[in-house]
Structure formats: C-alpha cells, structure tokens
C-alpha cells in the first residue's frame, strides 16, 4: 500500500480560522481598551493596566493563555491572509513567500511563549 503525503494546509487553515474568530470577537474592543480608553483615562479605572495588575494578569494561568492566544493567533491569521493575497499584488506565492509569512508567525509565537513563560506563574 502506498502511503500518500498528507497536506499541511489544514494546520495553517485551522490557525487562520481560530485567529480570525478571536480577532472578529475581541479585536476591536481590545484596541479600544489598550489603545484608547486606558491611555486617555476614559471609562475604566485609572490603574487598569498598571504594572502590578498587568504582571498579575500575565502570571495568572488564564491571563497568560489569553495573551498568548491573542498575539499568536492574530499573527497566524493575518500572515495566512497576507500569504494568500501576495499573488494578487504580483508576488509569486512560492515556497520562499510561504517560509517568510509563516516564519514571521512562528517567530512571533515563540517570542510570546518565551516572554510569558519567563514572567513565571
């Protein structure tokens, strides 16, 4: 019996889908909170993103997982889209483009993991 090589596409597609769903559900509100409300001192308590609070959040098991999922899956999602749009702007979506796009996503994931693990539990 001949063993057929399995496609790796479903893995990337799965990461794309999960990231897309997270971005659609939480993306806009996260931008509003971290980029607008907290810096401008609106609505939320003034110390919402203070160092002790953010450190505690990043050391909490759930908080750590949330930060990791947001950063890693957003980038996997976006890089998958960018990779598949390159052809439309005249860049051949070959192996090199694939390595660059998914490479950026992989490196981002690893950096986020190392930083989060380094913060401890």
């Amino acid at each position, binding site marked *: 019996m001949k063993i057929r090589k399995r496609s790796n596409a479903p893995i990337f597609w799965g990461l794309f889908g999960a990231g897309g769903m997270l971005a659609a559900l939480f993306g806009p*509100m996260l931008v509003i*909170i*971290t980029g607008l409300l907290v*810096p401008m001192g609106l609505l939320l308590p003034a110390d919402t993103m203070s160092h002790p609070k953010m450190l505690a959040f*990043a050391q909490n098991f759930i908080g750590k997982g949330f930060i990791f999922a947001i950063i890693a899956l957003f980038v996997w999602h976006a890089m998958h889209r960018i990779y598949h*749009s390159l052809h439309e702007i005249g860049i051949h979506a070959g192996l090199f483009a694939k390595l660059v796009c998914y490479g950026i996503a992989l490196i981002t994931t690893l950096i986020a993991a190392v*930083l*989060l693990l380094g913060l401890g539990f």
Partner: protein
Amino acid sequence: MAGWWKKNPFYVEYMVHEATALFVTAYAFTLLFGLFRLAQGEVAWNGWLEALKSPLSIVAHLVFLVAIFYHAFTWFKLFPLTMPPIMVGGKRLAPNVVVAGGCTAGVVAALALLGLVWRIAA
C-alpha cells in the same frame, strides 16, 4: 495576472478586506512589544504606557480600530460562505440571519470583554 482585481469594485472591496490583515499584524506586534516591556520590569512597562498616550499612538490605534472593525465585520459577513449550513427545522437558515447572528456574537463578546476587564481592574 497581478492587479486583475482593480477592474471590479467587488474585488477591490475584497482586497481592502484582505489588506486589513496588515493592521491585525501591526496591533499584534504592538501587544508583543508591550509584553516585552512588561518582562523588562516596572520602569520599562510604565515607559510603554506613556508611549501609548502619545498622539501618534492614539491616531495609530484609531486606524487599527477602523481596520480591525472592518476586518471583523467582513469575517461575519462571509459566514454564509465560510460556515457549514445551519439547519433549523429541516430548513437552511437564511444568509442574513447567519450574518446577523455572527454580528450579535461579536457585539456580545466585545461587551463581555469590556465588562470582564472592568471587573478585574476594579
């Protein structure tokens, strides 16, 4: 075949929708940098919080917001094409109902997140 999409408004819209992925990346990198500053300690973190208050950062986040909001909206708008058909009482749920359901989930999730952050911070 590069640039074929410029001839049809539908495909121009498609490319705008695809391009919003760049802003999703930019925001994720912003958060990653914040995480890096957090790992460096309190002084570095406070410096990052100050940087977020700069007019440049506020404008950048307004742009992120518009782009990511559009990104989210088109994600739900394409649900009838990207999601498996939902059957209710033997009939396929109408596309506009599916889109409305997705958008509602988006609004509920956003408000829940805001409420949760409020609760944790308070």
